[in-house]
């Protein structure tokens, strides 16, 4: 990890974003909006939160390409699993 770059990260600001997105998701879920729309927004917020944690707190942005490749492989398998299972639900 590049120490100088890592030290320039404002971890407190990242935390504020994480808390804001978490509380925002909860408030959004209580609004009288179409369910599908709400669910999509909530999972977009969850993905952004996960990205903030992995990118800034886990310092993925400073890591060698080996590490992203290592974690993207099972995530790709996870995506394929969902895609393969989806027709079974959609056309049941």
């Amino acid at each position: 990890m590049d120490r100088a770059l890592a030290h320039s990260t404002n971890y407190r600001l990242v935390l504020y974003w994480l808390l804001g997105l978490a509380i925002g998701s909860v408030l959004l879920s209580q609004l009288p909006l179409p369910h599908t729309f709400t669910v999509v927004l909530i999972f977009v917020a969850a993905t952004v939160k996960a990205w903030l944690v992995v990118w800034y707190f886990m310092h993925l942005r400073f890591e060698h390409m080996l590490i992203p490749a290592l974690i993207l492989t099972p995530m790709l398998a996870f995506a394929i699993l969902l895609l393969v299972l989806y027709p079974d639900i959609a056309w049941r």
Partner: protein
Amino acid sequence: MQHSPVTQPVVAPPMASPVPSGKLGMWWFLSSEIVTFGGLISCYLVARLLHPSWADSSQQLNVLVATLNTIVLLVSSWTIVMAHDAVEHGDVQQAKPWLGYTILGGLLFLLIKSAEWSGKFEHGILPWSNGFWSFYFAMTGLHALHVLGGVVINVALWIAAVRGRLQPIAHRVEYAGLYWHFVDVVWIFLFPLLYLA
């Protein structure tokens, strides 16, 4: 009879890796954990879409309590990155309180989670009540076990810090942090899946 020449044992030179072996090992472990939780979440998504009635069970969950737990875990993720930051600055003693706060966060999360589970048991909601509750107890239970494991690791590092023995193993704060952040990421997805969707 021919004798084979005496040869020197082959000693493989150590492989040069761009990533320290300990960190690489931790990322490998986390990669396998993605498969574990990913498999569970995939099964839940498929089952949930096939059983729209599970939304009624989901509404029995306390969103406020889960939100509080989410905040606790997010803040503890910040405290452990601050511990790592202190180590990176060469200030090992400063890492001690941050590790302590992270341990408290983990314990608070487990306390809130156990209170939530107790409430469900008191209302007669058990893992075999229906498919939703099976997934709920399995996923939150497995996650809580991971939190417990993280607390144990952090306690070990904190004790080393208290005894002034953290310096030689200071790099392990980063590895413990990677694990703790992963546990946080899993909860980031479990929370909306079970409580909000």
